[in-house]
């Protein structure tokens, strides 16, 4: 883990993006977006629907190719060395990535095997997200909040160094939010990128803020340097 410590002493960037662009056909979704995120810190990506937040997360998760610019994550360049960072990134997206007809436990065991994680970790996490009692019910029979809790467990199953969270608390009530806080919250130890369209809540969580508007970075800087009203104005 050469990225965790830097001989020069400065905090190294866990994620460094330089003039990243991504198109869908001839539509430009991301246009020359640049930022650096030091290890252990949290970046909040804000913007309206369809502005490219999820696309950015999918690129970081190695699921989409960047079209131009450079993307370096945990010291490895994408997409060439995507295989080297796979398994060190956890993605919590809009889709739960769980099979509806398998139980929560079966799903997690499947993911644990794919990531070569021992089976006890599954039980620990089921306990941690409060799903032990419903772990053998098929996912299709669970409420959205429960599925989201399982999804959190799935995303952190392999203890990723980088967590990509796409509106992580959208389906959770406050109590469930508390429950997953140690796994994906500020104290979880991972470098986090989270998207949100609620600037108020995001500012509390984040060290750095990236506001996207029309595929461009409208603001990038420390969360302390801007308030929610200014942010809203930037991308509204």
């Amino acid at each position, binding site marked *: 883990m050469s990225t965790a410590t830097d001989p020069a002493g400065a905090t190294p960037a866990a994620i460094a993006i330089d003039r990243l662009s991504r198109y869908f056909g001839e539509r430009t979704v991301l246009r020359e977006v640049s930022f650096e995120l030091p290890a252990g810190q949290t970046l909040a990506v804000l913007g309206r629907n369809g502005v490219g937040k999820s696309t950015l997360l999918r690129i970081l998760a190695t699921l989409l190719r960047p079209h131009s610019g450079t993307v370096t994550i945990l010291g490895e360049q994408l997409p060439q060395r995507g295989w080297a960072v796979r398994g060190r990134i956890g993605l919590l997206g809009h*889709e739960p990535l769980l*099979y509806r007809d*398998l139980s929560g436990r079966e799903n997690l065991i499947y993911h644990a095997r794919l990531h070569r994680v021992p089976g006890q970790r599954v039980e620990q996490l089921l306990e941690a997200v409060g799903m032990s009692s419903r772990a053998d019910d098929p996912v299709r029979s669970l409420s959205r909040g429960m599925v989201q809790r399982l999804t959190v467990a799935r995303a952190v199953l392999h203890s990723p160094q980088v967590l990509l969270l796409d509106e992580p608390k959208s389906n959770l009530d406050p109590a469930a939010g508390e429950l997953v806080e140690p796994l994906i919250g500020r104290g979880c130890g991972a470098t986090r990128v989270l998207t949100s369209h609620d600037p108020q809540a995001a500012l509390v969580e984040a060290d750095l803020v990236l506001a996207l508007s029309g595929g461009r970075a409208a603001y990038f800087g420390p969360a302390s340097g801007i308030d929610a009203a200014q942010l809203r104005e930037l991308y509204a």
Partner: protein
Amino acid sequence: MRTALTILRKDLLLELRTLEMLPAMAMLAVITFVIFHFGLSRDTLSGQLAAGELTVTLLFSAMLGINRLFVAEREQGGFDAFLLAPVDRSAMLLAKATALYIYLALLELVALPAFALFAAPPHMGSSLPALILFLALSNGAFAVIGTFVSAIAVHTRARDLIGPMIGLPLLLPALIATSLGIGPLLTVHASGSPSGKWLAVLALYDLFTALLAYAVFDFLLEE
């Protein structure tokens, strides 16, 4: 290898839970035999006619399975989950082809007795080992091409159409070899020994398709 086993286990478990494919495949096979009975208006068949009926019936049933092979991955995020894991992409091809091979073998467990009951010549028994050998080889080509075609079709809008349209021509060499190979086995006074020529063609076609699919499959998984 371990990854392929993991995926295979998950696939078989899913099929066991939902029973989406196998019952439908078996049903279709039986009903097709009935339709052939009326279409051909014969009580028993022999030789090439019997071989044709068996091959076409198995093909149709296989097509059902092929169409559904990747649907859960596509609709429930299985592709993404797989791509996020630090594993070899070819494991998906191996797992899916094996799953399909198992489904086909189970299908034949139902279809062959039904065929013997409804249509086959009276003394099929002596040819059975050779027949099974042919099906074991043709299942290989079906499994590999089926997996390949299904992986393409699942990302198209008209996946139920695109799958068979690409799959059928690609399967033709295997179908020709199977049908012409088992034809002599189903004549009334069959010797029971298989034709080496068609076995060899099938085996080589299995090998050819497996290598080709292995070479290109990674490109189908990438986003």
